[in-house]
């Protein structure tokens, strides 16, 4: 597995491990959890690709996170069944995973 593929795989895995539990706090249950899973599969690789293409610059990362939050919030609102405050859910999930990822990056 080359470095790029590993980056995609690790990023998606970490994102799912972090965001799924956070979505539980916003009443995501049953099929909603599948939605959270699929929405992250949709947004995360694309976000990582843009970061790689732009050299992982901080401002770009912030911009990407904002777009991802809006996109995921829209999906939760449109297709979610019981997710409370879909945009807040998306914001909380993504901020938590971003900050955790940044801290892990520093520590490791």
């Amino acid at each position: 597995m080359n470095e790029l593929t590993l980056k995609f795989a690790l990023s998606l895995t970490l994102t799912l491990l972090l965001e799924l539990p956070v979505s539980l706090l916003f009443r995501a249950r049953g099929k909603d959890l599948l939605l959270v899973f699929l929405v992250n599969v949709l947004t995360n690789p694309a976000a990582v690709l843009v970061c790689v293409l732009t050299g992982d610059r901080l401002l770009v990362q912030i911009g990407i996170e904002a777009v991802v939050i809006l996109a995921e919030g829209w999906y939760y609102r449109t297709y979610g069944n019981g997710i409370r405050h879909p945009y807040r859910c998306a914001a909380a999930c993504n901020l938590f995973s971003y900050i955790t990822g940044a801290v892990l990056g520093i520590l490791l």
Partner: protein
Amino acid sequence: MKRRWKCMTVLGAVLIFWASVSFTASADVIWEPSGDFYMENLDECEYDGRDYLTNGKEGFVVVYEKPGDSKEVARIKNGKRFYVGFTYKGRGGVTWAVLNLWGYEPEAEESLEPDVRDGWVVFENLAQVYMEEDFRAEHESGFADYQGELDGYEIKKELIFWDYPGSGRITGRVEEYFSGGDSPVYQDLYTDPDGNRWTYVGYYYGEEGWVCVDDPENGELSLSYGPGAIDRELYPAKKPEGEVMPPKTNAAVMAGTGAAVLLVVVVTALLIAVLFRKNDKNKGE
């Protein structure tokens, strides 16, 4: 007004002095590659400053003029030690390292373009070398203070400087003290597993390294332990021959990756639309 100009002149002088000292200091200390690629990608090159052994899976490494380029400047067998100044992470996910080739004499089976001073290899084809700084990090807590153990020592033939205790690598030899008896400044005292004492010389007229206090002139020390471990499989050296494809160009890799990501996005979006359509319809009602 005059006072303001005076202040600005003084401030400007201080800034110029600071800048000249900073840049001069960095130019003295850090080796930089000579090619255009490095200057054009300065921000993306990361300082490394360590030695590595060539360790290609084919038994040799191919050195290119620049990362991702197909133009070869050298082919070098495995097991050769080089200084890596900087690494560059290509957008295709391949990390490259620039080797300092200055002064390298290729073997008969190897090749090196004339007047080439440095070149780029795939970083994966290098094995990290255990260096003095690693030895120091590992053993520093056990160092004692140098208490003059080698003060007044008279050189009979030559004083041997080693990379680090047990390295097996001689970094310098001094036949007589410079400047009419100016002996090295020794620091730290390390006792190895065999009970030999060693002391470190940070700088002595261009030489640096560890001197064995108990046998300072023996260039063939017999020790029960060896160099520090290289945590990497080392491939045997082979004659550099045959066609070696350079790693895929960044553009080709990124195009392929982009297409794969787009496919994932489209398929997942459709999947969501299909699986959760019921919710969509209910909301419409």
